[in-house]
């Protein structure tokens, strides 16, 4: 789709404590749990850059960046 914004989802597994908040609040399920319930990217194309995950992550473990 022309003009559609694309995002990078950066997860720092050294900081992630597998609390589940980011993927519970992700409205598009672009992210979800891995086998240890840590955050993982499921489908980056679904990310709409709403920053819900970033705002709720208590551990500075997930960042969203807009692709230039």
């Amino acid at each position, binding site marked *: 789709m022309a003009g559609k914004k694309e995002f990078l989802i950066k997860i720092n597994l*050294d*900081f992630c*404590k*597998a*609390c*589940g*908040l980011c993927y*519970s609040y992700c409205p598009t399920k672009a992210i979800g749990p891995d086998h240890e319930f840590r955050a993982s990217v499921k489908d980056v194309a679904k990310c709409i850059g709403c920053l819900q995950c*970033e*705002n*709720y*992550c*208590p*551990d*500075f*473990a997930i*960042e*969203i*960046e*807009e692709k230039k």
Partner: protein
Amino acid sequence: MFDYSKYLRMDKLPHIWCYGCGNGIILKGAVRAIDKMGWDKDSVMAVSGIGCSSRATGYVDFNSLHTLHGRAIPYATGIKMSRPDLNVIVFTGDGDATAIGGNHFIHAARRNIDLTVVLFNNNIYGMTGGQYSPTTPQGYFASTAPYGHIDPSFDIVQLAMGSGATFVARSTVANPREMEKFIHEGLKNKGFSLIEVVSNCHERFGKRNKMKSPYEMIEWIRSRAVSKVKAETMEPEELEGKIITGIFRQETRPEYVEAYDSFVMQKAGGGN
């Protein structure tokens, strides 16, 4: 994307808080609000007492002081009196600020000294194992209330208003952007500012009260949050157990350090 590393001691992360603890959400909101002020990091002084919430000072790359349980406000008062140029922020808990430190809280508000107090209200003594605090809701369980809590709880907003604070607001971890906005407004106020943030301690409160996960607890908080505007249209019975959010007071009144300094100058100059 916000660059938190600008304000954090990255070598101290990951922090000590439990998975999903709202304290991290509040710390992030506070850091974003401070960033909006455009202050030099060295002009900021973060002071805390003791408790899980009070550990926040250990992670911020400002001047910081982690003090005694209940005594964050006295330390902050001393700092502000001797260094009025510093922007002094207090990170405290419901136990720290309204139980052992309750007196300091009301008198600092009464004086309207220029401090911004971010009060992490998780309705419990998190750090020491889940004893009830002055804000534990009636009927809920704590390690020291195994049959349910009977005390009525403090309304921290009312306490701050009654004591004379010039900025008073309440938000929750369920609404991180609103919380950030209220902290920012509080930082702008020249006087005593109180921002209560209702938070989740699923480990020591939630697990005793049928809320195991951070998500469940944050949703419980969200389900009880009612904006001030909406609350004004509701009956008292409907508001029972609710968390009213919003800015409750934003006004100007002479600030204590300024008043003190001008009084001293007047006396030193031979005035009466």
